[in-house]
């Protein structure tokens, strides 16, 4: 295609001429318009729709503060702990950079969990948005890995022993486990070798993957357009200008709304950074102010709060619990045999898998299955687009009792999280086991319960009150 140079009148402002020069060679204005300026989004977004842009903000905060931390941090087992205190005490304003980074890590998870909640409530993962959801699951996995690798870097007692325990989880895998753990660690125990490679993962490897996934996540979103709290497909109702009648351009309306959201977020974020950076030992754990000691395990190791729900599931998987799980697996196989419309070949395969799993649950011990269950508890979220068979996308048009199902699920998740920070007792383990069943039941039974009940008619126009 021949190059077409835009001609502007001679008296056009310099800025306009400069922009035109760039636009002839690089789709700058088009990018701005397509991705934000003239990206038409539903007008009924509520508070839950702020968390995507906030997550992007926290990502930027972590990268910028991370860069400045790396200027002074020493990734050496003998120097790491002292280098963090060097940043806190001796680098001008280093304490602020450090506290922003540690608070940012927890803030990232709070924002992302709320962002995921929005998806669950409004069916944002439903067709045609499955791929957005899958990229999101990828981002969540990377985020957990990033947090895990980053946590070793201060080289405190929690850093060290947390890493030791998690790497040993891989040792639970039959046959290849111990060798795999040795390979991950680069040594017989977590050591300087481990620290250096975790540093590389945390500082560059995962951030690059994370950035790539975020870009893919946004491209996939803009390709199909945003969902909304009513679950109405706004592109099915176009106005004379070619845009959805219930949509508005992101600029200026969501620019100003998101900036307001950012201001509120920064207020809360700063309150924590300046007045409660430890946050009761949840954001900066007390035990991590003790330098790592390979010879002495602290009385209480718990993972950082954002991992605790999944950690609870791991801990709940005792040899006793295996019997309950075996029953559940077999019952699920029976459910598929009797209560689905699948071709008989698939039904038999499902039952076969259930039986084999049940047998393996008797063969391999609970330690291995705990790891499996923990992994599955994270990954199962990826299945949402295919297990939700509700005729209504959004919770607003589902039967009222569905709301209670979500509430019970949410509370179980929170209880699992709470139990994860506590020391285990028999009573607490039982509660964790019950919540584990609820957690998995929510997902595994969704193909059935999501269809049940009396649904309200989904409107063709969104619910919007002018303000």
């Amino acid at each position, binding site marked *: 295609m021949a190059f077409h140079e835009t001609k502007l009148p001679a008296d056009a402002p310099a800025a306009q001429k400069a922009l035109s020069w760039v636009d002839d060679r690089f789709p700058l204005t088009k990018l701005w318009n397509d991705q934000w300026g003239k990206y038409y989004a539903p007008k009924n977004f509520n508070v839950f729709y702020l968390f995507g842009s906030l997550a992007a903000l926290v990502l930027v905060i972590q990268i910028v503060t991370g860069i400045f931390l790396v200027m002074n941090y020493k990734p050496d087992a003998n120097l790491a702990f002292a280098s963090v205190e060097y940043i806190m005490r001796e680098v001008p304003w280093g*304490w602020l950079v450090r506290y922003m980074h540690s608070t940012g890590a927890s803030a990232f998870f709070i924002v992302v969990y709320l962002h995921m909640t929005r998806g669950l409530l409004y069916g944002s993962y439903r067709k045609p948005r499955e791929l957005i959801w899958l990229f999101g699951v990828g981002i969540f996995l990377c985020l957990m890995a990033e947090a895990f690798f980053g946590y070793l870097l201060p080289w405190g007692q929690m850093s060290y022993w947390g890493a030791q325990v998690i790497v040993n989880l891989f040792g639970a895998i039959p046959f290849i486990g111990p060798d795999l753990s040795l390979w991950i660690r680069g040594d017989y125990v977590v050591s300087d070798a481990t620290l250096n490679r975790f540093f590389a993962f945390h500082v560059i490897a995962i951030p690059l993957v994370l950035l790539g996934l975020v870009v893919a996540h946004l491209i996939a979103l803009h390709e199909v357009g945003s969902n909304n709290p009513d679950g109405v497909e706004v592109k099915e109702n176009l106005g004379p200008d070619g845009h959805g009648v219930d949509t508005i351009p992101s600029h200026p309306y969501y620019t100003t709304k998101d900036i307001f959201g950012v201001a*509120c977020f920064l207020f809360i974020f700063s309150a924590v950074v*300046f007045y409660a950076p430890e946050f009761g030992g949840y954001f900066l754990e007390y035990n991590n102010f003790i330098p790592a000691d390979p010879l002495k395990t602290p009385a209480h190791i718990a993972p950082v709060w954002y991992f605790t729900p999944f950690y609870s599931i791991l801990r709940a998987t005792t040899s006793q619990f295996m019997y309950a799980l075996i029953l559940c697996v077999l019952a699920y196989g029976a459910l598929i045999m009797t209560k689905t419309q699948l071709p008989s070949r698939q039904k038999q395969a499902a039952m076969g898998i259930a039986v084999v799993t049940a047998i393996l649950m008797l063969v391999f011990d609970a330690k291995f299955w705990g790891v499996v269950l923990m992994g599955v508890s994270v990954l199962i979220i990826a299945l949402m687009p295919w297990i939700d068979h509700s005729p209504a996308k959004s*919770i607003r048009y589902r039967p009222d009792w569905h*709301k209670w199902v979500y*509430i019970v699920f949410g509370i179980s998740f929170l209880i699992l999280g709470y139990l994860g920070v506590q020391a285990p007792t028999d009573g*607490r383990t039982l509660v964790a086991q019950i919540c584990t069943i609820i957690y998995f039941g929510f997902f595994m039974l969704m193909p059935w319960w999501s269809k049940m009940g009396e649904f309200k008619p989904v409107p063709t126009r969104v619910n919007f009150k*002018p303000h």
Partner: protein
Amino acid sequence: MKLMKKLLMVLALLPALAVASEGGYPLDHAPDRSRQLPALQNGAKLFVNYCLNCHAASLVRYNRLRDIGLSEPQIRDNLLFTSDKVGDLMKTAMNEKDAKAWFGAVPPDLSVLVRAKSSSAGSGADYVYTYLRTYYQDDSRATGWNNLVYPNVGMPHVLWELQGVRKAKFVEEKDPHEAGKTVHRFAGFQQVTPGKLSQYEFDSQIGDLVAFMDWMSEPVKSKRQAIGFWVLLLLAFLVLLTWRLNASFWREVK
């Protein structure tokens, strides 16, 4: 909105799950002297005289003591025990190998100890404050001393001359949770020889020392809180402005 309200209601009524007590000696509350420069300076003096012989505070520089109102000549003349330059780190004179041989463990670095000892039982300052005041004579231990907060600790009672020598009384009591078992319970101190200070004076000196250690574990704390006030003020202003700005645009959305 209805769903959100429901969620919030149920969450607010979340049954408080029982929190098992940690066990361990109940901690006293350390007095808050973080804004009293004379107390912090006295604490610095005690720290350098009694603690630096065995413990290091190797993440703290001597000249940081300027922040608690001491001048460099004052630091150099009165507090420079283990070094000759006021810009040096507060290292200890004791060699690690010797320490291990003499005490069984290397005395830990105290730079951030107060931050490390926080727990649900109390703040780190509460821990150290109670620890330093609950030593008792125990001939079954190598050092001749034992401690209520940290049983069988390897550290001797360094401040015994100030507090005097005390013995601890223990009684055997029936275990309220398990029949047939007894519990070893602390029942009070017994002063054997008096110290240079009365109990009130000793507690106050320890209060100063702990206040200093608390300051030392995060010297920037008071500055951080002071700056935070202005940051939050500016951000509150920004919240207000962006709220009205947003409202002014959304008025035109029908």
